[in-house]
C-alpha cells in the first residue's frame, strides 16, 4: 500500500497500464515535457518516450479525432483535455464519432478510448475551467462517464476505463486532486464501471452524490445528528440505480448533491428514477442541492455557487423533518 493523492493514484494507474500494454499511449496539450497542466502525467514522457507520451498542438477536435482513429485501428489512446470547458471543440468528435461507431458498424469497429478530463470548481479558476458538464455526455448514448471521488477509486476506475472496449470519459475532480491522501494498493486492481460505493450507512436519509461533492457531503453528514447513508455513484453512465433504490427504500428520503447547474442536471434524472422505483416508499420529496442556473462564477463567488456543508446540512434537516 502507498499513501497517495488522487493525482498520484492516476499517475500510477497510467504507468502500470503502459508498462503492461504497449497499445496504450497518451496524447494532449503539455502532457509530455511539462507533465500535464495539473502534473498528472509527470515523468511519463521520460519513462516511456515521446512516441508514447505525445505533446500535441492546442487542438481539441484534432486530438480527440486523431485518438478515435488510433482507437479504431486497435490502439488504446488516452488523450487529456486540460479543462472540462475545452471539451466543447471536441464535442463533435466525441458525440458524432466515438459514441456511435459501435452501433454504426454493428460492433465491427469499437473505440477503446479514455478521455481524461479535469472537472469542476473549487480551485479559484474562472468559468470554462470550473464547470461540471457531465450531464451533456451522460445524455449521449454510447459514451461511458466516470467520476471518482477518492484516490483508491480513481486508480481502480481508470484501469477499468483503459481496459474497456467502449469510449470512456474519465472526469477527474480537480478540487480534490491533492486535497487528501488515501491508502492505495500498489498492485493493479479494477473497480467495475457502473457500480456505486456506499460511503457510509444510515437509516434516516440517503444522500446521492459524485465527484468532489462527495467530500462536502461527508463533512455535512459528520456535522449532522442524523443517521445518513451516502452513496457515491462513481460511474454516471451506466449508473447504479439499484444501489440508490435499495438505499432509498430503506430510508424513505433522499437528497441529491452535484456541482452542475440544477436545471437538467443529472440529479433530475436520479430523482425521476427514484419516483419511478420508490414512490410508495418515499416519506418526503426528493431534494436537490446543486449549482445555480448561472455561468460558473469567478473565484470570489465560487464557494457561494458550489454545494457546501451548510446547504447540504440544511437539505438533510428539511427532508428528515418533512
Amino acid at each position: 500500500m502507498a499513501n497517495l493523492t488522487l493525482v498520484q493514484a492516476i499517475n500510477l494507474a497510467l504507468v502500470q497500464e503502459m508498462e503492461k500494454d504497449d497499445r496504450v499511449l497518451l496524447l494532449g496539450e503539455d502532457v509530455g515535457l511539462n507533465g500535464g497542466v495539473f502534473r498528472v502525467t509527470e515523468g511519463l514522457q521520460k519513462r516511456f518516450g515521446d512516441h508514447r507520451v505525445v505533446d500535441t498542438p492546442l487542438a481539441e477536435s484534432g486530438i480527440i479525432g486523431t485518438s478515435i482513429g488510433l482507437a479504431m485501428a486497435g490502439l488504446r489512446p488516452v488523450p487529456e483535455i486540460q479543462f472540462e470547458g475545452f471539451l466543447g471543440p471536441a464535442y463533435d468528435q466525441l458525440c458524432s464519432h466515438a459514441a456511435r461507431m459501435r452501433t454504426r458498424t454493428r460492433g465491427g469497429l469499437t473505440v477503446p478510448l479514455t478521455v481524461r478530463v479535469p472537472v469542476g470548481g473549487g480551485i479559484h479558476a474562472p468559468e470554462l475551467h470550473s464547470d461540471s458538464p457531465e450531464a451533456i455526455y451522460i445524455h449521449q448514448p454510447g459514451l461511458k462517464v466516470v467520476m471518482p471521488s477518492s484516490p483508491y477509486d480513481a486508480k481502480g476506475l481508470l484501469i477499468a476505463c483503459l481496459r474497456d472496449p467502449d469510449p470512456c470519459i474519465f472526469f477527474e475532480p480537480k478540487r480534490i486532486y491533492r486535497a487528501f491522501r488515501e491508502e492505495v494498493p500498489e498492485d493493479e486492481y479494477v473497480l467495475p464501471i457502473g457500480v456505486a460505493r456506499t460511503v457510509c450507512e444510515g437509516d434516516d436519509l440517503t444522500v446521492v452524490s459524485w465527484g468532489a461533492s462527495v467530500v462536502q457531503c461527508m463533512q455535512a453528514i459528520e456535522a449532522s445528528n442524523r443517521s445518513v447513508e451516502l452513496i457515491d455513484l462513481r460511474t454516471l453512465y451506466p449508473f447504479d440505480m439499484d444501489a440508490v433504490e435499495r438505499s432509498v427504500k430503506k430510508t424513505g428520503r433522499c437528497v441529491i448533491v452535484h456541482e452542475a447547474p440544477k436545471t437538467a442536471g443529472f440529479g433530475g434524472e436520479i430523482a425521476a428514477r427514484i419516483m419511478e422505483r420508490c414512490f410508495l416508499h418515499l416519506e418526503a420529496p426528493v431534494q436537490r442541492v446543486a449549482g445555480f442556473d448561472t455561468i460558473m462564477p469567478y473565484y470570489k463567488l465560487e464557494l457561494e455557487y458550489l454545494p457546501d456543508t451548510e446547504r447540504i446540512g440544511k437539505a438533510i434537516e428539511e427532508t428528515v423533518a418533512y
Partner: protein
Amino acid sequence: MSSLSDPAHATTGGRRPLADRTSATPDELLDWLRQMLLIREFEVRTMQAYQDKKIGGFCHIYIGQEAVAVGCTAAVQHADPIVTAYRDHGHALARGMDPKYCMAEMFGKIGGCAKGKGGSMHMFDKPNNLYGGHGIVGAQTPLGTGLAFATKYIDEVIEGGKSRHVALCFLGDGAVNQGAFYEAKNLAGLFHIPVIFIVENNGYSMGTAIHRGTTMSHRLISKGEAFGIDGYEIEGMDVIDVQREMKAVADKCRETSRPAMVDMKTYRFKGHSMSDPRKYRTREEEEVWEAGDPITRLRDALIEEGLIDDAAFKALNREVKLQVRSSIEWADASPEPDITELFTDVYVEKFGPYLGTSMPQIVTDQENDR
C-alpha cells in the same frame, strides 16, 4: 507545388500509347473498367431503389467520380487504411465490399455491412480496411490522421520496424473549410504522419460553387503548404492518370512517412443528394464534363489498344448488371432487423428493457466491492 501531373497527357485522355501512361497489366486495366462499371450500375440501381422508397434517409450518388475511388484504391496496398465522407458507395465497392452488403445496408437490412444500422453514409468494411463513411463534413479528417498515426505506431513502436503504410483520407472540396481539417493537417505535418488527404474536388459544396465558398479555390493545395504538406493537383476523370499519379504520391509518402494533399479534380454527374434540383449549375456545364466520362475514356483506350472489343465490353457490362441485380434481390430477401436490435451494439454489454434493465447488465450483476 510539386505536382506529378503532366498536363500534356492529363487532358489528352487515351491518345498516348498505354505503355507510356501506365505500368498496369491488361488484367488490372480490365479490372478497373469492371470496378467503374460496377459502381456506375450500382449507383443507377441505388437511385431507382431510393425512388422506390427501399432506401431511407439521404443518399449521395458517386456517378462521374468513379475514376477517383478506383484509381486511388489501386494505387495503394490493401492493408493501407481508407476513410471517407458520406459519398462513399464507390469507395466501398472499389475496396472490395460485396455490392450485396452495400445495398442491404442502404435497405436497412440485417445483411448490410453494418447490419443495416449505418445506412448510405456509413459504409464500413474492417476486413477491407475501410473505416467509413462519415456524415459530418470534414470531421473524418482527424480520423484519417489517427488511422495513419496508428499504422506508424504499430510499425515502429509495437513491431520495432520502419513505418511502411499510408492512409487515404478522402474529403470533398466543401470540407476544406471545416476547422477539424486544419487541426488534422497540423497534427499530420507536425508528427510526420503518412496520411494523404484527397480532396475530391467536384466543384460544389452541395449547391455552392467552390469559388463562392472557398478562398484560393484556384489553388487548393496552398491549404496544405502552411502545414508543410506537399500538394499535388491531379486530373481525376481518367483512372489511368489517377492511379499512376496517386501511386507516385503514395510511394513517396510511404518512403518518407510524410503527409500529402491532393486536389483531385472531378465532377459529380448527379446532384449533391437525391433531392437536389441542381439549380446552381447549367446543363451546358454538365454536358462538358459528361463528355469526359471516365468509363468511356478507359473503354476507348482499351479498345484502341486492342485489349477489349465492343462485344467483350458489352459482356462485361452485362456481367456487372447481373451482379447488381442479384445484390438487390439479396438485399430485398435479407431479414428486417428485430426490435431487440435497438438495444444491441450501443455498449459492449447488452442493455435495455428486453433484458429487464434500463442499463447495461454489468450494473445489476456486480456488487459493490469495497
